């Protein structure tokens, strides 16, 4: 991989994950971003580059062969990726969410040995949590795991599996057994050759076009130990949900940062034409910079909030923490649209046109997806209920 270099050690033997991800973002993802968006094609060059540097499984502790990266590092790397290509960043974010779940909750022998294999081969993991017939509620499932003689079998109608056609494995939610109620869910690692995907429809969306997210009928089987031991409810509360909101927030911050970069360059170009006169748009730039700072502080403080308690299942399950991580998603997905929209006003028609150095069309389209992927109304509905019992501590 010529686009990346091996970073000098940070401390004894550690890898500068942020710098490597930033390099790939700037040298690989950025140049391909417009084509990925236009064609709605998978950003394979980004994934290949991350794979070559061992970055797809960076979160895995060193004892299992990973880089032992922190969530902060991956978050910063995703800001850099989101700044260049939101589709690439979303694929990478979703993959890391699955990795975090396996690292924290995939504790049996089979899943631990999978971890070592996955690090070695740098597998790309996708997720199938939504299902036809649940009305978008990922905390209930129609399909069930059928375990017999140490083997599981599973069939799921998934309305969306992002990059399903490009993944080396998929974490799938399902009811624990045929007799289980809809909310008694488990999560199962499904992988080839015992994983079959039958695509249903196409992915031709307004934004995040490179995530290639059509529907699928998923059929899988395998060793019953591929079912994670802990209930999905706990995995979701402690890991999947907070990490998803943090990593999505990070890449959305990247989109907003890219828009702010363009707006700033636009205002500075105006200023150069008439030194001594502050361009009218400079005041708007000051305004949107303050908004961007709020956004940035929100994402970075949320990462710290998670990291402070990441080993503590009880505190990760606390109501106040859940409310905070839900609020993060709603705020970040709102802020990204606000920042991009205001930057578009600053750059005017130069942002509105689809070509040129100040175009913000792709950023605006991508940003609009943030409030919809797990709809903000659903998340606010959850918070509304949690607040009925929250003590404010």
């Amino acid at each position, binding site marked *: 991989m010529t686009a990346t270099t091996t970073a000098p050690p940070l401390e004894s033997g550690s890898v500068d994950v942020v710098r490597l991800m930033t390099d790939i973002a700037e040298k690989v993802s950025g140049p391909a971003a417009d084509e990925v968006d236009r064609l709605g094609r998978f950003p394979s060059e980004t994934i290949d580059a991350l794979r070559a540097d061992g970055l797809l499984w960076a979160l895995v502790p060193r004892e299992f062969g990973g880089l032992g990266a922190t969530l902060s590092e991956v978050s910063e790397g995703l800001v850099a990726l989101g700044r260049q290509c939101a589709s690439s960043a979303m694929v990478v974010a979703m993959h890391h969410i699955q990795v975090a779940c396996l690292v924290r909750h995939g504790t049996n022998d089979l899943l631990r040995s999978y971890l070592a294999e996955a690090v070695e081969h740098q597998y790309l993991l996708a997720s199938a949590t939504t299902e036809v017939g649940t009305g978008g509620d990922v905390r209930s499932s129609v399909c069930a795991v059928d375990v017999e003689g140490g083997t599981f079998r599973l069939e799921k109608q998934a309305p969306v599996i992002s990059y399903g056609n490009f993944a080396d494995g998929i974490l799938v939610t399902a009811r624990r057994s045929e007799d289980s*109620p809809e909310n008694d869910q488990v999560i199962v690692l499904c992988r080839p050759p015992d994983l079959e995907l039958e695509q249903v429809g196409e992915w031709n969306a307004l934004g995040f076009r490179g995530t290639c997210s059509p529907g699928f009928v998923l059929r899988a089987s395998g060793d019953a130990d591929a079912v994670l031991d802990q*209930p999905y409810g706990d995995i979701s509360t402690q890991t999947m949900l907070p990490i998803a909101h943090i990593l999505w927030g990070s890449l959305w911050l990247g989109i907003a940062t890219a828009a702010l970069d363009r707006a700033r360059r636009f205002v500075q170009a105006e200023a150069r034409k008439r030194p001594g006169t502050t361009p009218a748009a400079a005041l708007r730039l000051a305004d949107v910079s303050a908004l961007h700072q709020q956004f940035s502080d929100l994402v970075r403080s949320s990462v710290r909030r998670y990291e402070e308690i990441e080993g503590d299942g009880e505190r990760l399950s*606390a109501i106040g923490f859940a409310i905070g991580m839900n609020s993060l998603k709603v705020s970040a997905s709102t802020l990204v649209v606000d920042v991009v929209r205001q930057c578009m006003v600053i750059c005017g028609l130069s942002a509105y046109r689809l070509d040129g150095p100040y175009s913000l069309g792709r950023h605006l389209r991508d940003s609009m997806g943030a409030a919809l992927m797990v709809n903000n109304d659903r998340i606010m509905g959850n918070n509304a209920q949690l607040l009925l019992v929250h003590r404010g501590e």
Partner: protein
Amino acid sequence: MDQEIRQVLAEHGRLAVDVSSLDENTDLFAAGMTSHASVNVMLALEDAFDIEFAESMLKKSTFESIASIRAGVLEMTDA
């Protein structure tokens, strides 16, 4: 007290099974109680016993069985 707890569960737990069939240690979440329903159960318990659960008790394990609910209610009524 168990009778009142069972009554609350019957009204608000939205369980997949009959409450009277539950052992006091049965996992209520495995029996179909959603996290949404558990919030309603908690609110109804606070009303029924005129208590307010402490922040430290607002977790899944407090509400996972009739026995754990009873322990939680007792802790708050003794306080």
